[in-house]
């Protein structure tokens, strides 16, 4: 320790660090507030008595908390039905996507067959094709199959996905060949090998795939909007967009509807974040 503290070069550096740290936190907090504000206001406005969200100056917090709008949504406006529709569609698509994409992804990663790499390349060209290009003929195809305005019309295009196959393949590449070959020598069937060796080994990526598929299906808007014409079959986003047209003035009611739509996906995300983020990273590696 020296007596000439003010000459210590570490001291001014420390001070600069402190200033930088304060600045960084200030920016981060401002960013966090902006990221959260719309969602917080949504929840807050959904609890306000009718009309309070349309006052000037705007209220941020309800003067009196009420659950009227939620009750209204479930009793008068049938929101429970839409919630079930959304859940059903999202669960079926997720389950099927897990089974079908994991099988195909594993086959592309670990099985030896003729034309494998060429087939995989062809499949990957599909990733640059915007889905909207397929929508018009797909609609006509499903119409001929009698599937327009049914849940299956919404579900079928999501049963398998190129992205899902990619995700699984990439992960399954790391499974050691020796392990699979040893099982083959022991006389295990290919399906047995898949079920008792491959699947346990790729559980983390299956979790990622499940969450991505579930959230994407739950949030999807355009395709269900096209396929479903009968109100009783609407998924939440379609029903919500429809309600928003009819109840433009009912701000608080619309906010309650938005909360119910968003909360399930937020919960899934918050609890299974790790797996979801893994999907973002896996997606970026492939580029």
């Amino acid at each position, binding site marked *: 320790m020296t007596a000439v503290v003010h000459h210590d070069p570490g001291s001014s550096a420390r001070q600069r*660090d402190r200033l930088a740290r304060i600045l960084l*936190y200030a*920016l*981060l907090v401002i960013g*966090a507030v902006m*990221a*959260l*504000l*719309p*969602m917080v*206001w949504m929840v807050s406005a959904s609890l306000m008595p009718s009309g309070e*969200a349309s*006052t*000037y100056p*705007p209220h941020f917090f309800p003067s009196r908390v009420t659950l009227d709008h939620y009750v209204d949504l479930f009793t008068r406006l049938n929101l429970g039905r839409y919630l079930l529709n959304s859940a059903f569609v999202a669960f079926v698509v997720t389950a099927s996507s897990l089974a*079908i994409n994991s*099988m*195909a992804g*594993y*086959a*592309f990663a670990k*099985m*030896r067959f003729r034309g494998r790499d060429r087939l995989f390349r062809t499949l990957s060209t*599909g990733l640059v*094709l*915007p889905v*909207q*290009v397929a*929508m*018009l*003929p*797909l*609609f006509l*195809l499903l119409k001929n199959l009698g599937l327009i305005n049914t849940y299956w019309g919404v579900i*079928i295009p999501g*049963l398998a996905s190129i992205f899902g196959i990619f995700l699984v393949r990439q992960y399954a590449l790391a499974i050691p060949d020796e392990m699979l*070959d040893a099982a*083959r020598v022991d006389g295990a069937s*290919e*399906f047995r090998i*898949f079920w008792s060796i491959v699947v346990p080994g790729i559980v983390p990526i299956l979790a990622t795939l499940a969450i991505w598929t579930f959230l994407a299906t739950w*949030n999807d*808007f*355009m395709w269900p909007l096209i396929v479903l014409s009968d109100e009783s079959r609407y998924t939440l*986003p379609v029903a*919500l*967009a429809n309600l*928003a047209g009819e109840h433009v003035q009912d701000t608080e009611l619309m*906010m309650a*509807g*938005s909360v119910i739509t*968003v909360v399930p*996906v*937020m919960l899934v995300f918050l609890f299974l974040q790790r797996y*979801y*983020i893994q999907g*973002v*990273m896996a*997606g970026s590696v492939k*580029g």
Partner: protein
Amino acid sequence: MTAARLRIPAEANSAAWFFLAPALVLIGIFFFLPVAAAMLLSLTDFDLYGIASPLNTRFVGFQNYSRLLRTPDFWLALRNTFYFAFVGGPLTISVSLAAALLLSSKLVRFKSVFRTIYFTPFVTTLVAVAIVWRYLYHTRYGFFNYALSFVGIDPIDWLGDPAWAMPAIILMAVWKSFGYNMLIFIAGLQAIPEELYDAASIDGAGPFRRFFNITLPMLSPTLVFVTVITMIGYFQLFAEPYVMTQGGPLRSTTSVVLLMYEEGFRWWRMGYAAAIAFVLFIVILLATLVQFRLQKERA
């Protein structure tokens, strides 16, 4: 080669097809087949009468495309989509990069908390948040105009003024999607070797020079990937204008996909709509190729 390995191919071939068949059949029938059919559809005058009976459909060559090019609404939709993608895209990427840099600083703690908060808007349902933002943009009661009133700015008719509607949609899109790119940038930043920064610091390079001479060049593959993904997504703009503005005011927010939806699924001019979809595909393909080419040239 072991005996086991030699034995595999013949059996594996049929087993592999068993594993692949469900995915290939589904993706083939419900994706690749429709894409190919869209090409054919765009060369016909398929419309409401065609839905009644396919016999009412005629082959019209490239008439749909030539009609598109003569339709002002199509050019407007293309312009709006470009506006959204070329202003919103870079803006989103800049915000993402800024957030990633903040979160990569060694001085900051609670990183995972901030990261989760910033990422949250990305997982929310687009339709729901579009409705929320529609109220935030309300001319009289919305928070945006209330906040602006503190700095003495008169109320803006965000969604009712053709000049402001697209900027309003862009602002929401930035808020909704920057978190995704941010995560990818954070991963990219972590991959940059620490020694580069240390060496630069010893040479007396300040934070700005370090950013432009080390961070940006090292990040450029990530940057290309993020740009491609963001642009592809943004060219497909649909739900935001559908929910917030119905493509208005004065069609100032009608995007290519919204136009395709209206022509195809509201007016059932499906041949014409298929041509619009193909133009979208070509635009996306060109934009992607250009970005990869730029990346190669710089490398």
